[in-house]
């Protein structure tokens, strides 16, 4: 029996760096890294040279200078004497406002459309797929300008509401005025004691949550279930309702009214805001509807049949079996669609809504000539939002995904 020959002694050859799998990965990475750094330094070097040629420096001091322009849509106090930084903040809040309202409308509409599309009713299902295809296959920018045109061209001017026999009337019991300058809604006015009402409402919600926990525990221990929906609804609504009348109705509505050629008081929603929010919400809802449909269809039929054979009622099958599994599929793309909506809100410029791109990346950029700094801040803002959201998605995936191998 021959003894196994010793492994041939290898001497390191330079060509092994590229051909031997032990070193190849490493050398490939070194090459990539060198190229990457070279390109990076080339770009930085070019930037420095260009800035020197233009006699510019990189400084963020402009954020503390007087802005000198007005923003008609704002959530915090701001005037043309405020700083550029303040203008950027106003823009950021406006972006977040559109994103927030848009996401809520889009989710509600999307759920509605997605579920109706699965309806057995032929005409409803077709109508919903027409809605989805229509909104998904036409650019969102076109939808934004179209909704804006609809709001400004097909509504009456405030003066049409004037006179004994006006051409236009307010809708919803004389409380909402839709004009070509925007929509006026009644505004809630908090009088003395209203904060107690809010506090009471908050406490009732907490109480409702505790009640649900109690009911759940009782069901696990004894097997008896309480009529949780009605009791929790009563716990949440009744105390606030009683307190509202007991304290003499401390919250009232302030209705918009016509004064001169314009409406006064109430909440003024500008057409730019409405058009942007509604168009983004419609557009995104079409995507959400598809996600909802796919999520529900992805739960295999065996699941609901198995649940039924265990003796669960249809609503419990939906709540305990189908929804948890469908949500696992629905939530991550849903959130990334929220993110898309937020990013698409940067199209605000098409209708003149002052979001962060319009203030920081628009007028501020043009006035100060600080393109580099403004764009850096702008991208930083969007990046921060999106990283925040995608880290949430990752967290969700980690905690709810089925574990395989």
């Amino acid at each position, binding site marked *: 029996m021959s003894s196994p020959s010793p492994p041939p002694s290898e001497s390191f050859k330079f060509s092994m760096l590229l051909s031997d799998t032990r070193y190849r990965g490493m050398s490939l990475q070194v090459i990539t890294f060198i190229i990457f750094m070279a390109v990076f330094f080339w*770009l930085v070097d070019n930037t420095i040279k260009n800035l020197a040629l233009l006699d510019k420096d990189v400084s963020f001091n402009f954020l503390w200078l007087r802005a000198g322009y007005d923003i008609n849509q704002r959530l915090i106090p701001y005037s043309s004497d405020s700083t550029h930084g303040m203008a950027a903040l106003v823009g950021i809040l406006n972006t977040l406002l559109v994103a927030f309202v848009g996401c809520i409308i889009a989710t509600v509409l999307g759920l509605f459309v997605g579920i109706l599309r699965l309806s057995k*009713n032929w*005409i*409803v299902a077709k109508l919903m797929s027409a809605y989805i295809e229509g909104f998904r296959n*036409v650019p969102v*920018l076109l939808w934004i300008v*179209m909704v804006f045109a609809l709001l400004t061209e097909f509504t009456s001017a405030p003066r049409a509401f004037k006179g004994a026999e006006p051409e236009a009337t307010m809708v919803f019991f004389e409380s909402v005025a839709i004009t070509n300058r925007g929509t006026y809604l009644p505004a809630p006015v908090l009088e003395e004691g209203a904060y107690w009402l809010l506090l009471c409402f908050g406490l009732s919600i907490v109480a409702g949550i505790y009640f649900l926990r109690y009911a759940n525990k009782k069901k696990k221990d004894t097997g008896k279930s309480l009529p949780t929906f009605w009791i929790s609804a009563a716990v949440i609504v009744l105390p606030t309702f009683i307190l509202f009348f007991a304290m003499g109705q401390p919250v009232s509505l302030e209705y918009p009214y016509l004064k001169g050629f314009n409406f006064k008081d109430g909440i003024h929603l500008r057409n730019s805001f409405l058009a942007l929010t509604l168009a983004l919400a419609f557009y995104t809802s079409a995507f959400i509807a598809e996600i909802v449909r796919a999520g529900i269809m992805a739960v295999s039929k065996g699941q609901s049949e198995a649940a039924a054979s265990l003796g669960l009622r249809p609503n419990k099958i939906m709540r305990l079996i189908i929804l948890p599994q469908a949500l696992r599929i629905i939530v991550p793309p849903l959130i990334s669609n929220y993110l898309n909506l937020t990013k698409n809100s940067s199209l605000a410029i098409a209708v003149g809504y002052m979001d962060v*791109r319009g203030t920081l*990346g628009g007028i501020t950029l043009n006035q100060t000539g600080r393109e580099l700094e403004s764009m850096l801040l*702008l991208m930083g803002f969007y990046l921060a939002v999106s990283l925040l959201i995608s880290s949430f998605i990752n967290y969700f995936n980690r905690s709810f995904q089925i574990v395989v191998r």
Partner: protein
Amino acid sequence: MTKIAFVREKEIPPSAPPITEVGIIGWLSQNLFSSWLNSILTVLSVYFIVIMLWDFIPWAYGGHWNTKSLRECLDLDPDVACFSVLAARWKQLLFGLYPSEEYWRPTLTFIFLLLAAVPILFPKFFRFFWFSIIYPGLAVWLLWGGSFWSISIVYIGLTVGTLLFLSLIRRYLKNYIIAAILAFFFTAVFFLFIYNPLVVLLNGILPISLPFVESLKMGGFTLSLIVGVTGIVASFPIGILLALGRQSNLPVIKMICVGFIEFIRGVPLITLLFVASVLLNYFLPPGTNFDIVLRVVIMVTLFSAAYMAEVIRGGLAGLPLGQHEASASLGLTYWQSQRLIIMPQALKISIPGIVNTFIGLFKDTTLVSIISLRDPVGLASTIRADQKWNGIYWELYVAIGLMFFIFCWGMSQYSQYLERKLKTDK
């Protein structure tokens, strides 16, 4: 013995189903009026459809096509559409500011585009794939014009480089990296030293050229298609590479890919387009100024490549681990197993996502109007700024929307066809 009074000797023929279960009535009662809720929904939907069509059909059907201005339309009949704006400006919507005597060039490019797409879309015609390969060069030459040779020599250089790479691998080296470096080196030498003299020489011998059209003249759907199609074609391979890089176990490459993907996906396309139009001059050597359409195409490509990478990564993650292990145990190298085992399956899973990215990219081409290029949406505002058509909205928007709808809807229909065709299970 009991007497059996009656025994049926013949089987009763099956009676026809009740009239409420078959035919139109059956279909109606099953699909539209199966329950109270359903009936209400049906009535509401029908009401909605009737209301929409009631307004839309007379508006569209009676539309004016031959007036000179919106005022004339309104004088004739204010309640119907004024499609005259389309009749007057359709050339602009399709071609932008392209010189009118050269309209045949974008038209021909478009027809060739359809022809070049056929071998890619339908494998039956794969033998015509050579046309798809030469199409990009042909399109660039037709659209921008200039010397024929300056583009065909590029093709020759790239072809020789590729052939060199392939033959190096097959015959001598068996090492992708060294072959790639050598082939790249050769191609670089070709373009640095041989390209220019060769073009000048060939131009001297046989001048074939078209009048040059500058990029700012491109507009309308021609521009949308230029940006969209180039972006789609280029973002696909880049997306695959990025997805592989993100899955790679080489940390440096993985980090670069993750950073790139997350950065691009984190910012809106508009900001990237602004970078392209405003900031790019800062990053390039002083004095460089390259074509705005090219800049936009690069940005749109990078943008959708990042999304593509994520879609393909989803497909890769959807593959069972056993596929990787099985291909490795067969002794396939990394690239072989990617090419033969992993990618075909991963790409198949991700078809819907890939096509959605394509559709998204094509729709996003409208954003170039915000950096004042003349795509259809930008042209719509230009046309409305004209005194004659001031105040026109729907006719233009409906026409533009319809064009986009046709393209995007066509793409999504194709993806469904592809999914059905590639379905191997069941």
